[in-house]
């Protein structure tokens, strides 16, 4: 297969606990203003720190609103020639919970409003797309959606792709991570030796990915996939190392070309130790690293998409954000960003890792 096309992010929008626009999001990341707050609405025995979108609209209404904003900021008249790729880990779980908790039975549950496809149905209730596909690989869902977009544009199958990463907060995810003992009751502290867990969060992040650049585009330069083949929830550094190396190979660049890594950095003991070890093995100590999850929380299936937007804005603003809430660095062999700083940034890597040892690293670059 002769690879000829280049792949560009030409527009993006997001809504999360860290801001109702990309601009708010990036400003809050650079100023270390966390959107994480204690909230007992999704836990019966705990008051975990989580990230909830601050909006008068419902999650579904916000989903349509974000797509409308993308359309308005794009060179498209409509989405009729566009492939919709969704990445989500919970889909319509919130709908199922609302029905089940009301009656304690299954009679009012609509299974077709439960699954991942329900979010595509919401979007397609307003917009017509050429085709659609959804990926659900837990916390790598929307990173894999971007990877698929890269693949189909590179191979000249599609010209326009709308990637949507979307996960709403629900009892299942808050309670589930609580059961695993990895929820923090404060703002998470990625890569700190005293970190005590993660912040479950929600977000919608949309990226228009095209084969033609427009002004202010960011290039998707490569994608690297791997599987740990090790454990359902405990990561293995070889898996993340392989994903990063595969992404570099795909982008045809060397580790020294990467200026910044937006780490998966959840704030859990297992992830951060493993990821730092993998970064140390692949990169020199010069590349700056930070996790932005202490500002956005871990948006699960939306994380890859929202962190792709953050990575794009790092390049557009030539600004590397600090790793917020870092006091005692656990792994001193990686170059964690201690304060937000203006830098020359040509290439950024964004890491996403998930349950089942599913790994995806993406490389973004400045358009030259």
């Amino acid at each position, binding site marked *: 297969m002769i690879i000829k096309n280049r792949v560009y992010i030409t527009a993006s929008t997001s809504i999360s606990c860290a801001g109702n626009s990309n601009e708010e999001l990036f400003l809050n990341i650079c100023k270390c203003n966390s959107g994480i707050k204690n909230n007992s609405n999704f836990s019966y025995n705990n008051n975990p720190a989580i990230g909830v979108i601050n909006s008068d609209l419902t999650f579904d209404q916000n989903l349509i609103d974000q797509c409308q904003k993308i359309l308005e900021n794009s060179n498209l008249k409509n989405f009729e020639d566009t492939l919709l790729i969704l990445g989500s880990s919970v889909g319509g779980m919130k709908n199922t919970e609302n029905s089940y908790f009301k009656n304690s039975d299954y009679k009012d549950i609509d299974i077709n409003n439960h699954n991942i496809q329900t979010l595509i149905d919401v979007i397609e209730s307003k917009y017509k797309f050429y085709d659609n596909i959804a990926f659900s690989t*837990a916390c790598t869902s929307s990173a894999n959606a971007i990877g698929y977009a890269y693949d189909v544009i590179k191979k000249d199958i599609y010209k326009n792709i709308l990637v949507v990463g979307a996960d709403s907060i629900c009892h299942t995810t808050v309670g589930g991570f609580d059961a695993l*003992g990895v929820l923090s009751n404060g703002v998470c502290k990625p890569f700190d030796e005293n970190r005590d867990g993660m912040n479950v969060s929600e977000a919608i992040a949309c990226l228009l990915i095209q084969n033609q650049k427009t002004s202010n585009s960011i290039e998707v330069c490569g994608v690297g996939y791997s599987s740990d083949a090790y454990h359902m929830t405990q990561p293995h550094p070889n898996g993340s190392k392989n994903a990063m190396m595969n992404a570099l190979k795909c982008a045809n660049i060397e580790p020294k070309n990467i200026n910044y890594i937006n780490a998966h950095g959840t704030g859990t003991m297992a992830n951060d130790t493993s990821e730092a070890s993998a970064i140390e093995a692949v990169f020199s100590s010069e590349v700056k690293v930070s996790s932005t999850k202490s500002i956005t929380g871990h948006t699960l299936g939306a994380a890859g998409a929202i962190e792709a937007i953050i990575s794009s804005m790092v390049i557009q603003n030539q600004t590397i954000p600090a790793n917020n809430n870092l006091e005692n660095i656990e792994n001193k062999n990686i170059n964690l960003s201690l304060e937000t700083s203006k830098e020359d940034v040509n290439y950024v890597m964004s890491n996403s890792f998930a349950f089942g040892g599913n790994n995806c690293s993406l490389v973004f670059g400045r358009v030259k």
Partner: protein
Amino acid sequence: MNINLEILEASFIYDKNDIKELNTKELVPKMVTRRRLTKAAKIVIYLSSQINSKNERIVYGNAYGELKSTQSILSSINAKEQISPTVFQNSVYNTAVSYLSMLKGNTSEIMTVSSGDITSLNILKAGAVKALDGDEIVLIVTEALNIDHIEDLNKCIDYLEVGVALKVKVSKKEKTMNIDTTNNQKYPASVIHMLNIAKSFDKTKQNIIEITL
């Protein structure tokens, strides 16, 4: 774009309620691992053994996720009880194929598609895109819907447990079979495209389908 795929291997299994002959004890000798497997994981591991699968890239999919785990989680939350950590880790849509990767030591790219009624069609499409790179790709779809009170949720599916696996590669030859979408026996719509291909597969002939993207 049209991409032609040659079906190299095919296997399927289904039951109206509970698929029993999955050979799990032999395929997963470690009891500690075996006990954690979901039903979909057992089906995936069985199907993988039937198609001479090694460590190919895999596109897996299901429409409804791990319903039994989801049901257990909802019951626990409703009863204000702690969720089982194992049940939670087994609730993600990529659970079944992740167990396969662990069992086989498969460190390749493994995707999970969930596209409602067109899940198996989208697995074929994603598989065709991946297969353009020249390697053999394994495609697997499962549904394991046999949970308590399924009659409250399901009004139209007769076969609650179904799994299909295909091994494919890109072909430059003309298609030899169509993708039939007939579903007279009321399987989950999410499996039907791949199930009908597997049912029509004839090992003595070339089996080539055309995927339109």
